[in-house]
């Protein structure tokens, strides 16, 4: 039957996609979205185990993850606003002021 393994595998796939997207996309917005994707993958993982082990703590933790993800999204979008104001573009490669 469908067990925790399937959920975990799904979570893994989502994670990998999100990681790749994070590294690859030029558009900053899309990068942040990939990040959201990764958060979701984690949540799926947590819920799967919570269900399998019969422990509600997993759900609580997933709750926290969602909250934090929301906070992070807010900040990240604030960053985008700032970046747009500064560079007038959302291409991430343009933001290399800190580079040597």
């Amino acid at each position: 039957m469908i067990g925790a393994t399937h959920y975990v595998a799904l979570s893994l796939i989502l994670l990998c996609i999100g990681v790749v997207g994070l590294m690859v996309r030029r558009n900053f917005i899309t990068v942040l979205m990939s990040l959201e994707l990764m958060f979701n993958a984690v949540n799926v993982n947590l819920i799967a185990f919570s269900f399998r082990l019969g422990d509600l703590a997993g759900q609580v933790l997933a709750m926290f993850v969602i909250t934090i993800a929301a906070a992070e999204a807010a900040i990240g979008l604030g960053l985008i606003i700032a970046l747009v104001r500064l560079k007038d573009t959302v291409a991430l490669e343009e933001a290399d002021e800190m580079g040597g």
Partner: protein
Amino acid sequence: MDFLVANFGAILFYVVATITVAAAVGVVTLRNPVHAAVSLLLTFLMVAVLFVMSHAEFLAAVQVLVYAGGIMVLYLFVIMLARIKDLGPGKVFLSGLAPLAVLAGVVLGCLIAIGILLGSMAAGDGGAAAMTAVDGEAIGNTEAVGWLLYLKYLVPFEVVSVVLLVAMIGAIVFGRRDAALAGAGEEVEP
């Protein structure tokens, strides 16, 4: 028909999973950010379904409310209000980095897979009843989560609240229109 009924859970799962993965791929690959946002929304919804399937009803509701209702809206608003220009006819992905990134992702995935395979997990939904009960009393998932959240995990709860507060302040600070953000001499956008 019997097959469908008998294996409804499995079929549902596979369908939902497929859509989720497809949407995720869409997020990563679509050029237009709005399209990517919609794709992401779809992903969120599918994940909520998965939550329900795992007897985490409350969380599914939260997922839809917060993610789909809050975060996606936020994304779309920002895309709209900040007048994000399209990246133009340039590439979607970074040229040099793409293969390497894919490799990294694949490698990471494989490694984690190894870990999963090395471990042992049995099938079954052993905790269905547990999802809805606290102290042996069946009270429903939401109440159960609430009991846990406000009693056992009160401190993390409060901390997360503070984090939200900080994030809010941070977002306000970032969003301010003043010369310090925009740089000296640059015109401030209204």
